[in-house]
């Protein structure tokens, strides 16, 4: 189930991986996602915890350090590839749409 879902990332998954292209701790991820999306996407603590443990299990992210019981994570190579693939897919979606929707004036 988890693997199937990762073929296409959900929005929260995408943003978590995006933020983790730089090392970040749990609460930092929640704040950064909210800041980056200007409050449009909010990730609950439980959802984040579950996703982080799933990503870690599947070797998509890795724990870098632990300070004051605060764990810092970053993407693995596998995670970076998944994120890049998703980015390419989204770009493709946009370009596919732009030909039809933005060229409507011709």
């Amino acid at each position: 189930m988890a693997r199937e879902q990762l073929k296409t990332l959900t929005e929260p998954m995408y943003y978590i991986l995006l933020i983790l292209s730089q090392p970040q701790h749990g609460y930092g991820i929640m704040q950064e996602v909210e800041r980056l999306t200007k409050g449009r996407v909010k990730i609950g603590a439980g959802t984040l915890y579950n996703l982080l443990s799933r990503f870690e299990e599947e070797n998509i992210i890795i724990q870098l350090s632990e300070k004051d019981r605060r764990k810092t994570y970053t993407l693995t190579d596998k995670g970076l590839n998944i994120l890049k693939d998703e980015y390419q897919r989204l770009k493709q979606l946009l370009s596919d749409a732009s030909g039809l929707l933005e060229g409507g004036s011709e």
Partner: protein
Amino acid sequence: MKNKSKWVFWGFFSLDYQAMKIYLEEMAEKGWMLEKIGLQQYLAKFRAIEPQKLKFYVDVFKEGGPLTPENTDQSEDYRRLCEESGWTFITSHDYLQFFYAQENSEPVPIQTDEVLEQEIVEHTLLRNELRGFYIFLLIAGFVFINNLPLEYHILLSYTGLVSIFLLPLAFVLASLIAAYSIIRILKARSNIKKGLPIEKPTMKNARSRIIFFYGSQLIILITLLMFILVDAFLRPQILVSLLAPGIGITVGLGLRYYTKKKARKKEDSVRVILISGLVVIILINTLFPFIFKRVDESYEVTSVPEGYPIMTIGEVTKKPSNISLLTREFKPGRSPVTPIYYYYSEYSNNESLNISYYETTEPKYAEIIFKGIRDKLEKGFKWEGMTIFDRTIISDEEMKDLWDADKLVLTQERDVIIIQKENIVLKLSGSIDFNDKQTRDLIISRFFSDFSVEN
């Protein structure tokens, strides 16, 4: 502020965790804040606070569970994350984690992905609740099948008679609840597929479930206990049968306390549970034979109460009545359909006498008992894969007429006789010559005198 606390009945189904939020909000408005949930899920402790509006969140933590300690590294990481996002942790119970926040604060809900949440609920709560029901169904089914066809023993005690109705009832109730949980989860799954929100249970629904489930459970338990006490009134020794569940519950509660409060890792609690299981098995194997021996000894009597027709070795062997007895045992019992029954035995150095006497309200019950005793004697006992003490049963028409019995069978060796006459069943064995006329007359007049008078 009032400095007091109170325990209230909790009893929520874990699948109703969404309804718990509403309940906790209501309690806070009345001035009570949840402190902890104890004694399985039966009771919750609340402490007094200033009545206020608070927000509550009950979340399902997938790394919790009945075997997992309350505080593990994982649960602390998770709670810290929740606290950082604005929720204050209150307590936890198995998978469920309880948080609150001030009314005017706007913390992000702990779960923001319904699909993920549903997946976790299925893997934790549903599996956990169903596991309990499956184990119950398995045991109940085993007990039920094991007792089919119904043994004549159930006619002999209040507990036996009442369990004819209670066992199937408990079985049906547990099946209903299991089916209901599955339906709820399937509905939630289909809602998600259709893009609809998961149906949130209302307090009213959750309450009805609590009343239905625990109410029926309580009624079954109280009824059973009441009838055990009624049976124990005549024969207090049967209270020993409560020892096994008593030990089970005590050890269970002790283990739960250790698992939740003392252990730090799930592996530790699993190890302790396995070791405790072994200790209990060893304890039962050494303690129970000792207890049962003591209980058996307690049936020894010097005299038999009035109203129970008995015979003595002296009478049947026609030897002096001052024959020196080693033991005399007397076990009486009673049930609504068998108002009088007892086992009586006498042993001397060379002789023995065993009487089982049953007086029922209707001859049809006597017939069931007669057949039951006959079959049991024929089948013997199963012991370590072998059948022992199985006997060949014969009938003797001539003897039946002589004894003026409705039914009569003997063992091939003619050392055990079972007689039924109308509502009375009698099983005799030991140093008795069943062909002797004088003995026969004595037995008939002693045990079946009512009929002789009528005739």
